[in-house]
């Protein structure tokens, strides 16, 4: 065998190995505690351009869902929760002085902010349930080939996560096929 042919075989072997490794590391998983009926009232959260969002919403509408589209930035805002006035009162420059009490104070302010923010989000979801009559929150993140798209469904009646799925996007997938895949998994049809 000539050196060139030998080299070609090595390169092909390496490329196949990389392909197989990247495929095997992207595993799908799905958990469902129950199937959603396709005439459920849902709010869909997806962080995409409007044309993609519309394509997703149309897929859900076609299946009979009663859909409200929301941006998570509309749902949750940190500015009303994060009270930086307490931080401003602490006058130490933390990067210059490593003082345990001061570090503890900064950390605790941050922790309380996180608790308050999560509580605010929960209260807002409760409002969505009662004012918009939404039964489920559906979160979707659609990714291109070689990455993992994922979905999550939150039951706003019980405040529990009812459904999760990680779906490695296939080479021939597009927005519609991924969305339809998730809808099938969510409804069990």
């Amino acid at each position: 065998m000539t050196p060139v042919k030998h080299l070609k075989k090595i390169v092909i072997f390496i490329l196949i190995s990389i392909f197989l490794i990247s495929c095997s590391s992207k595993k799908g998983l799905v958990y469902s505690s129950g199937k959603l009926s396709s005439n459920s009232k849902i709010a869909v959260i997806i962080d995409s351009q409007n044309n993609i969002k519309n394509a997703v919403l149309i897929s859900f509408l076609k299946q009979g869902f009663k859909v409200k589209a929301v941006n998570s930035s509309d749902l949750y805002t940190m500015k009303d929760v994060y009270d930086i006035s307490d931080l401003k009162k602490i006058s130490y420059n933390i990067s210059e002085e490593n003082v345990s009490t001061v570090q503890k104070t900064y950390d605790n302010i941050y922790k309380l902010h996180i608790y308050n923010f999560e509580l605010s989000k929960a209260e807002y979801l409760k409002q969505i349930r009662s004012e918009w009559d939404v039964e489920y929150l559906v979160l979707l993140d659609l990714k291109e080939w070689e990455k993992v798209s994922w979905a999550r469904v939150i039951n706003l009646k019980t405040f529990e996560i009812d459904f999760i799925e990680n779906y490695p996007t296939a080479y021939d997938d597009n927005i519609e096929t991924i969305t339809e895949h998730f809808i099938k998994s969510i409804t069990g049809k």
Partner: protein
Amino acid sequence: MKYRLLHIIFAITTIILVNIDASAKSVAFGFFINESRNESLDYLEKILPNSFAGALKAKYNFDIFKPAQIPVLASGEDDGLKKEIIKEGDLKVITKDIDADYFVYGSFKPLDDNKIKMTINVFEIGTTSVFQFEDIGYLETEIFKLIDKIAVQIKNIANKSMIYKKGTIPSKSKLAILTNIDGEDLNSLYYEFLHYGYKLSPTQGNDIYGLMDYKQINKFYHFSGVNASFHMIDDRKDVELWHGTWSGTAYYKKISEEKKAYEKFSFNYMNTKNEIIKKIRSFSADDIDYIIIIGFNKSKNNAWIRCLNLKNNKLLITESEIEGSSINKIANKIIKSMTTGLPENI
């Protein structure tokens, strides 16, 4: 060939010896102070640390230093001074000449029905953090059972894994998980908990993106409950706010606000935190049983957990250095930790 074999045997022996040396911990003990006025219990101030030291040495092969072997503590006793509960702000000075990995000290007070409550502090020398926990048991003939139980806790806390357990979390409990991963990784984590039978609150999972990165989640590394706490040392001397007749009204107002901030978020933090915990508990739409904080490192191959029982605000579990080659594997180890009792042997 013969020399190569000798080299291999030498290398293996060295590796074994290094690992044995690395695993032997050393703990110095301070006195356990009688918080009550019942002087008939003063004898426990020495008995308790000596008993803990004995148990750690005999059962777990720790190197130990009893209070009488620590000059800064023994000299106080020799002078006939009444022993006092050690202030956390003085730990650095007290331990600077102690050649040990950890310093353990505490206090106790008798309760009704012949019971005793002990407060134990485990301080890793050279750091600025203390692990404090309480335990209650019976006096007299039962006290050595309590001592053995506490010795196991000390042994598990006094290492990098810092395992503390006060119970287990049954399946079908509802968990609120706060973590620094999101998206598909968060789904992978959720998958294992849901599969085990836990119910999951939508806390944090109700958004596409997470709020915290691997540095921000570390602010939760120090975590407290009403019964136990792993916290950074705070000392009012750290934040002396100078003022005098020269201050002026504006400056005085500024430092008064600063003082209030330190009171609220450091010295009286547990009261401040309890208010928000009460709010979370009373949010009836989401009836959470436990808050679980899970911090992943940047490579997501190592994690730590803190578990709080939301119903009674008690710290239930801490554990660090949970390793795994995937989030699913780490999640399974976490679930195992949450569902099994305290390990006797590490």
